[in-house]
């Protein structure tokens, strides 16, 4: 259970920041290591609860498939959408280089 695990390390925080595509300063790594330990420590309250045979709930309502009639209808206006993009060219979103120098 969570209560027995190693406390969150700075390396964990750097790894998670990479997964979340979030650049952190060294100061933020320090701060978040301490703060996430505090919040996760509080979450360890749950480790004492007997959850044997209790199924997880992902959603408050029974979800069902929702279908609509298979007929075309207008989507968002392309030019209006692209006008909000940081960069666009030829009717497409433009982004910085994806492959490295060696690619």
């Amino acid at each position, binding site marked *: 259970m*969570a209560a027995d695990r190693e406390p969150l390390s700075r390396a964990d925080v750097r790894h998670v920041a990479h997964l979340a595509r979030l650049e952190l300063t060294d100061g933020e790594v320090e701060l978040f290591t301490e703060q996430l330990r505090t919040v996760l420590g*509080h979450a360890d309250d*749950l480790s004492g609860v007997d959850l044997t045979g209790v199924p997880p709930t992902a959603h408050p309502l029974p979800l069902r498939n929702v279908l609509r009639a298979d007929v075309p209808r207008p989507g968002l206006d392309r030019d209006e959408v692209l006008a*909000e993009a940081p960069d666009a060219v030829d009717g497409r979103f433009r982004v*910085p280089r994806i492959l490295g120098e060696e690619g």
Partner: protein
Amino acid sequence: MSAPVGPTAGTPGETARAIAAAVRRGDRRARDVVEEALARIAEGDPEVHAFLLVTADAARTAADAVDAAVRDGRDPGPLAGVPIAVKDNLCTRGVPTTCASRILDGWRPPYSATVIERVHAAGGVVVGKTNLDEFAMGSSTENSAFGPTRNPLDRSRVPGGSSGGSAAAVAAGFVPLALGSDTGGSIRQPASLCGVVGVKPTYGRVSRYGLVAFASSLDQVGPLAATVDDAALLLEAVGGPDPADSTSIPEPFPSLDPDDPGSSPEDLSGLRVGIVTELTHAPGVQPEVVAAVLRAAEVLEERGASVREASVPSAGLGLSAYYLIAPAEASSNLARYDGVRYGHRAAAGEITEMYGRTRAEGFGAEVKRRIMLGTYALSAGYYDAYYGTAQKVRTLVGRDFAAAYGEVDALLAPTSPTVAFALGERTEDLLAMYLSDVCTIPSNLAGHPAISVPAGTGEGGLPVGVQVLAPAMGEPVMFRVARAVEAGIAAAAAAEVVTP
């Protein structure tokens, strides 16, 4: 305590129902109503900062359209000419929608939220976008990238959050109605701290289409108003199924009319109400808040209800479960802010660097913290221990409520454990801030409706709200009880004034 702002602050203004009735009859012009609201905002909002944007020209155009309909003999609808403030995480076509985040600064959505379309269709007039904690993550509106909102009743204190701008706009008397969103208490807690009414509907009752997602299995849009009756008016106008939201409940929205059979708030005989022991007698709940819950219970008993203690054993665990589930969902929902399709983009030569820097520059500290927490709770090796455990606790909360509703028809609980706290008081103490939502979170986890109704004052003469909780789809009984609490508390206060 600093002086209230503006001539209408702290006193009940004209109700939305009265405004709409007068406009529909042709006795008042929507344009005049809206000009008065804009003048109140211009005078009072520099001190309060409830609004991030006032859409004066669009409001005047909308009001003129309402007046033209009345002149032509067409009914503009149940919200005719009523000025309404909307939280700035609801998309408004062509009008900046920021979520109080730098990452969306200047973004103009290409579509409007369903609730915004319904407000327009009902003759309501949107006057502006209100301040919030960035992406609705917070309990004080101090996490806004554009500066905090102040509580109109005491400007040294927070209005609560995350719908603090909407609550303050109603409490200051700028507008009679506002829309907010509630993921863990973000409508009800600021309503309590500002002395207004706030409703989180049953999950799925109100469309989430165009509500910028925070935690999709918990988020609901709902009304804030000065009275229970006005909250019902706005909820009836925006609620009901929406083909654009696949999680919306297909049944039509129920009538909340107090004149419906079995809906009388005057006669509650046969109604069973429980006081949630685990939330009312929880550590950190101020004595005046407990007293307000007991006062509400007395009022209900006087009207014929039977009131008892009711146990929801897992309610206290909700907070810990919520602070894993909500960040987990948020970390996924906020992945879309990557500088590609809209919003801020940082300068960088390569795309991974662009993503990381854009998000570093665009998000504030609380949003980063929750993305980190959520990503960790979902990451390989920790998923079962954190997110998986929290989801099972969520099941327990639902089961415990179901057991309680086997015995009673509605529940009472505190809304916020405390009255409005000072600006800056909890910004350095995360757990103290998170505890603000301990009493409101269980309803989000269960997907149940809950309403906060003002029920007197506490420390420093500041308002205290009490929650009425009901099972899923239980809005009619919830409003019946809330109307009884509101009327009973008002009658008791009036009696105190005449008694020497």
